C-alpha cells in the first residue's frame, strides 16, 4: 500500500503536483531514492524494532477550530497550515514593504528561486538521514520566511501547524533565512492529532540560516502524541557574530526522536537553547540538543528541563562539539530532569566532543531526581497544601522557559495549558 501511495505523495510526482521548479523536483527524487534504499537506522536509546517508516497520507485540508481560533487572535505576521496545506498567511503591510518574504515555500521555490535554492537543504541535507530524506521527498505545507538585510521584526512571526487526522500533514518543513543584521523571532506551534502506535512515521524539519550579525530567536511548541513515530530535525546555521536562541517546549505521550542543533559556523557566533520537555503516559522521547562550534570565539549555552510522569521514558542529551580550529570557544550545559512517578525513567546525558586544545570554558551539569521533599515541606509549613506545593515547585522549574518563548500571550497560555494538563491532571 505504501508503495502505491508514494506515486503522487513524494519525490518528483509530488513536486510536479505542487508546481515546483525542476531543481527541486530533482532533489526530491534523489531524497526519495535515498529514503527507499536507506536501512532503518540503529539508535542507541530508541528501539525502532516495532516502529517503521511507512508513509502517512491523509485527507485534504479541513478546518481545525482550535488552531484557527489561535490564528485569529494573533496580530503579527502569521501563517496557518492545516493538514499540510497553507490555509492562511498574513503579515502587516510595513513588514512586506520592508521586503520580507513570508509564505508558501513551494511557490517561493520558483518565485524567489535564487534564495530558496541556495538555502533549502543547506542546514539539513535532503540525504543526511532516513527521516531527513523522507521529509525532503514528501514535505508539504512548507513555509518560507526571508528577512532582508538590516530589517528588524518587532513582533514574533507565528507559524501554526495543525492536523485534523494523524494521517494528514505529516511532513512539515520550514525555512527561515535572516539576512545580514536582520533580527526577529519566529515560533512554530503544533496541534497534532492523537492516534495509536503504528509503523508509520512523521518527520519535520526546520532550517534557520542566520547571516552575519543577524539575531534570531526561534520558538518551537511541539506536541508529541501517541501514534506514528516522530522524527524531528530543527537546525540553525549561524554566521559571523550572529546569534540564534532557541526556546523549545514539548509535551505529550508519543514516541519521538528529535534533534535541536546549532552550527556555530562564523567567528563570534552565539547560540542558546532553553528546552522544556514534559512526558506523560508511555511517552518515549529521545532528544538531543547539540551545539557544533566551528568558528573561532563561538559561545553556546544549553539549559534542558524535563519533567516525567507515568510510565514515560525520556532521554535528554546535551552535546557540545568543538572542532579542531574552533579556538576560544565557550560552552555550558545544564540538564536537569525531575521524575514525579517512580514508574517513569529519565536519562540525562551530557556529551563533550572536543578536538581543540584552546577552549575558553566548557562545563556541564546533569541530574535526574525527584522533587526535593525539603522544598515541599517548606512550602507546606506556610499552609500551602501538598498538591499545590508540588505544582508550584514544578512550575518554578519550567516557568522561565515558558516566559522566554517568543510568542504572544495567547500562545503562551496554550503552552501553559498543555503542560498543566499533563502534569497536574
Amino acid at each position, binding site marked *: 500500500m505504501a508503495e502505491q501511495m508514494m506515486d503522487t505523495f513524494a519525490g518528483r510526482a509530488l513536486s510536479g503536483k505542487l508546481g515546483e521548479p525542476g531543481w527541486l523536483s530533482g532533489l526530491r527524487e534523489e531524497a526519495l531514492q535515498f529514503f527507499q534504499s536507506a536501512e532503518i537506522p540503529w539508535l542507541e536509546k530508541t528501539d525502532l524494532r516495532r516502529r517503521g517508516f511507512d508513509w502517512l497520507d491523509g485527507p485534504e485540508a479541513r478546518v481545525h477550530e482550535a488552531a484557527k481560533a489561535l490564528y485569529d487572535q494573533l496580530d503579527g505576521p502569521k501563517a496557518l497550515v492545516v493538514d499540510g496545506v497553507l490555509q492562511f498567511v498574513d503579515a502587516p503591510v510595513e513588514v512586506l514593504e520592508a521586503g520580507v518574504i513570508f509564505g508558501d515555500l513551494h511557490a517561493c521555490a520558483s518565485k524567489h528561486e535564487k534564495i530558496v535554492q541556495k538555502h533549502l537543504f543547506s542546514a539539513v541535507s535532503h540525504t543526511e538521514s532516513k527521516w531527513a530524506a523522507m521529509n525532503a521527498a514528501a514535505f508539504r505545507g512548507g513555509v518560507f520566511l526571508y528577512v532582508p538585510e538590516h530589517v528588524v521584526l518587532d513582533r514574533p512571526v507565528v507559524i501554526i501547524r495543525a492536523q485534523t487526522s494523524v494521517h494528514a500533514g505529516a511532513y512539515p518543513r520550514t525555512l527561515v533565512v535572516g539576512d545580514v543584521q536582520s533580527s526577529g523571532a519566529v515560533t512554530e506551534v503544533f496541534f497534532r492529532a492523537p492516534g495509536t502506535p503504528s509503523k508509520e512515521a512523521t518527520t519535520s524539519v526546520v532550517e534557520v540560516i542566520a547571516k552575519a550579525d543577524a539575531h534570531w530567536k526561534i520558538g518551537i511548541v511541539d506536541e508529541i502524541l501517541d501514534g506514528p513515530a516522530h522524527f524531528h530535525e530543527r537546525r540553525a546555521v549561524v554566521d559571523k557574530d550572529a546569534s540564534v536562541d532557541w526556546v523549545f517546549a514539548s509535551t505529550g505521550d508519543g514516541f519521538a526522536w528529535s534533534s535541536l542543533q546549532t552550527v556555530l559556523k562564523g567567528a563570534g557566533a552565539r547560540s542558546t537553547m532553553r528546552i522544556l520537555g514534559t512526558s506523560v503516559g508511555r511517552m518515549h522521547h529521545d532528544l538531543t540538543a547539540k551545539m557544533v562550534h566551528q568558528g573561532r570565539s563561538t559561545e553556546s549555552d544549553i539549559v534542558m528541563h524535563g519533567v516525567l510522569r507515568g510510565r514515560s521514558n525520556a532521554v535528554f542529551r546535551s552535546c557540545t562539539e568543538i572542532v579542531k580550529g574552533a579556538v576560544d570557544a565557550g560552552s555550558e550545559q545544564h540538564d536537569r530532569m525531575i521524575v514525579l512517578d517512580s514508574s517513569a525513567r529519565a536519562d540525562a546525558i551530557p556529551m563533550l566532543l572536543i578536538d581543540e586544545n584552546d577552549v575558553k570554558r566548557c562545563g556541564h551539569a546533569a541530574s535526574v531526581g525527584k522533587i*526535593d*521533599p*525539603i*522544598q515541599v*515541606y*517548606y*512550602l*507546606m*509549613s*506556610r*499552609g*500551602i*497544601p*501538598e498538591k*499545590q*506545593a508540588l505544582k*508550584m*515547585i514544578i*512550575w*518554578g*522549574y*519550567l*516557568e*522561565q522557559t515558558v516566559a522566554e518563548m517568543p510568542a504572544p500571550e495567547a500562545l503562551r497560555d496554550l503552552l501553559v495549558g498543555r503542560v498543566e494538563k499533563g502534569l497536574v491532571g
Partner: protein
Amino acid sequence: MSELKLEIQGLHVAIDGKEIVKGLDLTICGGEIHAIMGPNGTGKSTLASALMGHPRYEVVRGQVLLNGENVLDMSVDERARAGLFLAMQYPAEVSGVSNANFMRQALNAKLGEGHEMPVLKFHRQLQDRMKKLNVDESFADRYLNEGFSGGEKKRNEILQMSMLEPKVAILDEIDSGLDIDALKIVAEGVNTLRSPETGFLIITHYQRLLNYIVPDHVHVMMQGRIVKSGGRELAEYLEAHGYDGLKAELGIEDETVEVGI
C-alpha cells in the same frame, strides 16, 4: 478565638531511629514569650522541627495540643493553617517561585477558598511589612531564598511571619549569623506581632537576642528535656555563669543527647 494554648506533653522525638527529645513538657499561652536555651546538640531544633512536622522527625510518644486539637494528627500544611509557624534555621531555596507569589499562595491557603486576599491589598500589605522590617523591595520578586545570604534568609522568615500572623511562632535560632542591626529588626518583627492572641517559642544559644525580645519564661534544655525553667533572670544567670555552672548545679556531665551530634 482569643484564648491560645499550646500544650506539649511528654514529647519524645527520634530522628533515624535515634531519640533526641526525651520527654518534654511545655505549655505556651497567648501573649507569652518562651525562650528555650541550651548548648548545641541538646534537642532544641529537633523540638521545633517536630512541632512543625518535618518529614525526617518521628514523634515516638507524647502529644501536642493547640487549643485542645491534636497537632500531631495534622499534616504540615494543616498545622500551618491552624496557626503554627516555624522560622527555620536553614529554609529551603525554591527556584522559579517568587517570594511574593509564595507568600500570597500561603496567605490565601490560610484564608481559605473564597476568602482570598485581593492582589492589590496583598501587595500593599507586603510593601508595608517589608518597609517595617527594612527589607529591600527587590525581595518580593526574587526567587524564594535563592542566592540569599544567611541574614537575608532570616529576615525573609520574619517577613513571612509578619504576613501570616500566626498563633504560635517558633523561631529556631533566628539570631545566629545576624549582626546587631539585623537582630534589632528581627526583634522588632516579633515585638510588633506580640499580642494576647499570639504565643512565641524562641530557641537560641545566646542571651543576646533576649535583650531585645524580653521573654516571660526561660527554659534550659539538656539531654533532650527541659532541665530548668525560670523567668528572664535565668537567661541573665546563664549569660554570667555559662551552661557549666548550671550543669554542675544539676549534676549533669554531658549535656548533649549523644556525643557528636
